[in-house]
């Protein structure tokens, strides 16, 4: 039998080419299935907190209490490793409007794949700067009212995110603080109209309705700067007996240490919307549990989902935290109803 080497070589060559093609396709498949895009992605974040704030510190990244840390941990679970397939860029808007504009512009100039915003103010600023880069806001009390999204279920545009509370929460806060301090006659509401949804009105309706029901006078204490904190709180140290409510306000979060310290200084009971204040030594807080799902949305957006197709998520859980030590210091006795309700009682 005659051996014909030429066709054999051809077959081998074809087989070799086929193998290479197959291997290439397989590799491409691996890259496509895995979250390993060919270019380095950029995830940008702008925060109202100064970069040296505990909440922005990277060493807390593993802690679920840190929004940023939860994000990075969540992205890692989904195959995004910082420095490997994405770069994380954080800018702080702390320090005034100019500072914020600069930070926003810097981020937009990076042409990131997604921009995370912390609060309503920054969201508005970033939305003003770009209409194409996807924006995921971490907290926004009233995105529809703010004009960020068309509806919660179908936001449209390039923005989506998470709400941090319903307007009924105003009444809830009043009821809870009144249970802790039953003999109050007035209630002070601390907020910065510039950074509070609808300048505070978002919560005030329910609050005022509850105040009327429980015969408590609502005394607004709007502040514009940190310097006004002392004065605003000091007012409620004097009789008639008063307690205070801190609205959802990034300004207040930024200045939480000062606020908590001032309340302690003037022995004014105050209820806060976030547990951050508890970490700073606050009396009690009630608000939505920050089940940070932004990693989910960032992942989807990095994989090509339009931000406008992702519904705005509302909080699912609410948690009540009470610091019994602070309460004792204020001479308060926490009733059973509160204790039964409290998700965490700090000593």
């Amino acid at each position, binding site marked *: 039998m005659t051996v014909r080497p030429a066709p054999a070589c051809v077959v081998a060559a074809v087989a070799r080419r086929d193998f290479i093609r197959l291997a290439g396709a397989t590799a491409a498949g691996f890259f496509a299935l895995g979250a390993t895009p060919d270019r380095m992605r950029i995830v940008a974040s702008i925060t109202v907190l100064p970069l040296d704030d505990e909440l922005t510190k990277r060493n807390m990244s593993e802690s679920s209490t840190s929004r940023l840390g939860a994000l990075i941990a969540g992205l890692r679970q989904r195959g995004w490793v910082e420095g490997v397939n994405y770069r994380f860029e954080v800018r702080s808007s702390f320090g005034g409007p100019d500072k914020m504009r600069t930070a926003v512009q810097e981020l937009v100039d990076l042409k990131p794949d997604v921009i995370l915003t912390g609060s309503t103010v920054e969201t508005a600023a970033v939305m003003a700067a770009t209409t194409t880069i996807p924006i995921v806001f971490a907290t926004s009390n009233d995105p529809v009212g703010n004009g960020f999204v068309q509806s919660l*279920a179908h936001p449209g545009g390039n923005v989506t995110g998470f709400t941090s509370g319903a307007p*009924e929460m105003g009444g809830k806060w009043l009821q809870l603080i009144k249970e802790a301090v039953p003999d109050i006659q007035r209630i002070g509401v601390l907020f910065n109209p510039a950074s509070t949804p609808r300048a505070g009105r978002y919560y005030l309706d329910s609050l005022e309705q*509850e105040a009327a029901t429980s015969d408590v006078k609502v005394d607004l204490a709007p502040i514009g700067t940190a310097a006004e904190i002392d004065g605003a709180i000091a007012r409620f140290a004097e009789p008639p007996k008063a307690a205070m409510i801190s609205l959802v306000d990034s300004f207040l979060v930024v200045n939480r240490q000062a606020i908590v310290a001032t309340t302690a200084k003037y022995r004014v009971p105050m209820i806060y919307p976030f547990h951050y204040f508890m970490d700073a030594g606050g009396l009690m807080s009630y608000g939505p549990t920050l089940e940070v799902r932004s990693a989910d949305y960032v992942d989807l957006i990095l994989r090509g989902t339009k931000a406008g197709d992702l519904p705005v998520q509302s909080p699912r859980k609410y948690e009540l935290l009470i610091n019994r030590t602070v309460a004792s210091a204020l001479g308060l006795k926490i009733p059973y*109803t509160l204790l039964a*309700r409290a998700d965490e009682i700090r000593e």
Partner: protein
Amino acid sequence: MNEQVDQGQLRTPPGRLFRKYLYSIVALAFAALAINTGFDVWFSYREQKLLLAATQREQAASAAIQIGQFIGQIENQIRWLARLPPELSTNEDERLNAIRLLRLSPAIAELTELDAQGREQVHVSRRVADRVGSKIDRSSLAAFRGANESRAYYGPVYFFADTEPFMTIALRGTGREPNVVIAEVNLRFIWDLVAGIRVGNTGKAYVVDRLGVLIAHPDLWPALRRSDLSGQPDVRAALDGVGPPSGGLIKEDLSGQRVLSTYATVPSLGWLVFVELPLSEAYAPIYASIGRSTFLLIVLLAVAALVSLWLSRRMTVPIQMLTQGARRIGSGDLEQRLAIKTGDELEALGDQFNRMAAHLRESYATLERKVIERTSELEKARDHALAEHDAAERARSVAVAANETKSRFLAVVSHELRTPLNGVMGVLQLLDDGRLSEVQRRHLATAAASGETLIALVDAILEYARLEASAETLETRDFRLDQLIETAADLMRPQAFGKGLSFDLSCDPSVSTSVHGDPVRLNRILLNLIGNAIKFTPSGGISMRATIERRDDQALLRAVVRDTGIGIAPDMHERIFEDFVQADDSIARRFGGTGLGLAIARRLTRLMRGDLTVESMPGNGSVFTLVVPLGAAGSSIVQGALPPPSRPLRVLLVDDDPVNCEVGEAILIRLGHRAAIARNGAAAVALAGSQPFDVVLMDLHMPDMDGVEAATRIRQLPLRPMPRIIVVTADASPSTRERLASADITKVVSKPILINALREAIEDEPEHGATDAPLVSGALIDRHFLDDQKELLGTSQITKLHHLLRETSEKLIADIKAAAAAADPRQLARSAHQLGSAASALGLVSLFERCREIEEAAPSMSAPDCQSAARELAALREVSMCALDNMLAPAEQRSASRNS
């Protein structure tokens, strides 16, 4: 070349059978394996699919149960609250209980407790401020009515704040006035459950409500979008109560991925739990199985190919061996044996091939044997044919011999007929002694001519025989043509006149000449033609014209014989010249004759290089034209008196017949010679030895000793001069001529003896015997030399030499004899040389020649040879000296007388 081409065309390309087998077996194995694998994979695929679907249904059912349990747990908790005895708690306690319940069950967002009339007693919420004892009438709520109507109320799924799926669950307590507890349940907590349902690695489960709206999905956001899936065919079908397909459903999920889908219904809620597994994962085991099967198939194929290779080679090699064997057998190599040891039919076939080759070998051997046998048979047949041929040849020889015998018979007969005729002819010739009157002479000539004609007629039969044997030769001589023609005419004229016919002879003057030819044959032709004309002419006349045309040195005789006879039909013109043929049988009866005449005439004419033709028409007579070339005559022949001979010769006539002897003697005397008679051979030899003769006329046929032998004996005599021997015979056969030639006899005269023929033969001798002498074999003395010596030296000197030679030779012979006796070859040679030298001085050539031969041969001679040589030389010397004595005797006598 053609064979090569044929072989080239017939030769199977090597390996074709092998490839055929290989491909067939590989194809068979491939087909079997492929079909097997295909069925295996197909059934495995179906089974796995069913199994997969069943597993998935199990998972769906399990998920449905879990969801049912989740709701059931909430329901139990609410029931616990609803069934708290009213006495146990004030409103505040009820609130506390509700708060406790909220704390216990995170999914419950709000709790409302209504009394039996539907008035709100406690409202506890996670979101809004609690209300206690508001008494708001909630009896119109569907939940309240539903709880009162049935044991438990499950409200429809609704979306709070646009995105949050909620459901109302209401339960009624126990007792006479049972409270109704209404709970708003946040279904997002099912998400944890649904997300926790593991469907394979990448599969998922999701839940839709009774309307097809997505409630829970592992990816939270599709649920938050209030996705209505009722438009999807499978969801639609499930909502319509169609059971899931047993093998599962393959469809595209929300992300466009192809999935295997099935579902289960959550009991009591009517929700549907869909479980989807991507096909890539679902069928991965199937694909793996197919891959394994394919790998196995390839491995088996490779093995099959190897086995096929082995099998094909195993099958092909014996066949190739068979092919080569067949080719070798075809090319004639029958000694080759095929060694195929496969233990099957191929080996049997190989054995058959071997047997066939063996049979062929035997057949070839048989064939060769048969060829040899057949060849020998053919050789025998050939030998037989040759023998037959020899026999035929012998028969022919016998026939020829018989013919010769016939010829001899005819010759003898003619001889016996002619003998008396010779007598008549001889007497007639003797009558003309020159003194006869003209009339007498003419009569005499007529008688002679008639006699000669009679001889010629007798000769016709003999001649015919000779002609037939092609043995006839012309005997030419000079003769007078006019005389011949006139003689023939004279001979036939009386016959013509006898029949009352005119005979007109007209000879051209040119005919009056002597020519050289065969007058006897010419005469015979003319006589035949004239005789025929007379014979076949009843009336009228005959004319004959003769003319001569001169051509160079030849004369062309044209003789035309014309008659007014019966004529000859044209178709017989040639046949009449054939043997024994006449124009008509009736003619033969009327006219008689042998029918040989014209045949002989034409043959003789042809022999003379002439031609004989006829022109004739029946009834108009015939014209025979003879044209014969004749040579010019040497000398004119004088008619009448014979010329005297040049010199009278001594002639010895030898014949056993007295008449012939007498006639011969008379003719010889008439010719002027002296004749002596011998009546037999012995007497002739004795007479020839006793006295000298110039000529011997020897009859060939004699009783005691025939002419040839007698002539030979005479030749052996030491005669000087040796007579010329002329044979007289009527036998002119070739055998006789050969005998004569072998006896060196060249001169022959035919019987009967014609005087002119005899005269020419006798006188036709060499100019002088002396010139011929040295040429005669066995001559003792060179006479010419001797004459020259005589003239040169003179007679007296020759005489002196003669005496001297006698004495010297006598002495030398004595020496030779002594040398021979002493067996001394050298002395013998020397003496022989001296004798030869002496003999040569006087022309004793014979003695000289012999001496020289003995001198040369002496050294090698034995003693007896020497003595015989000596004796021979002595005898030869004696004879030679006698001859010399005879030659010189007259001269010596004269010189002696002169001297005396």
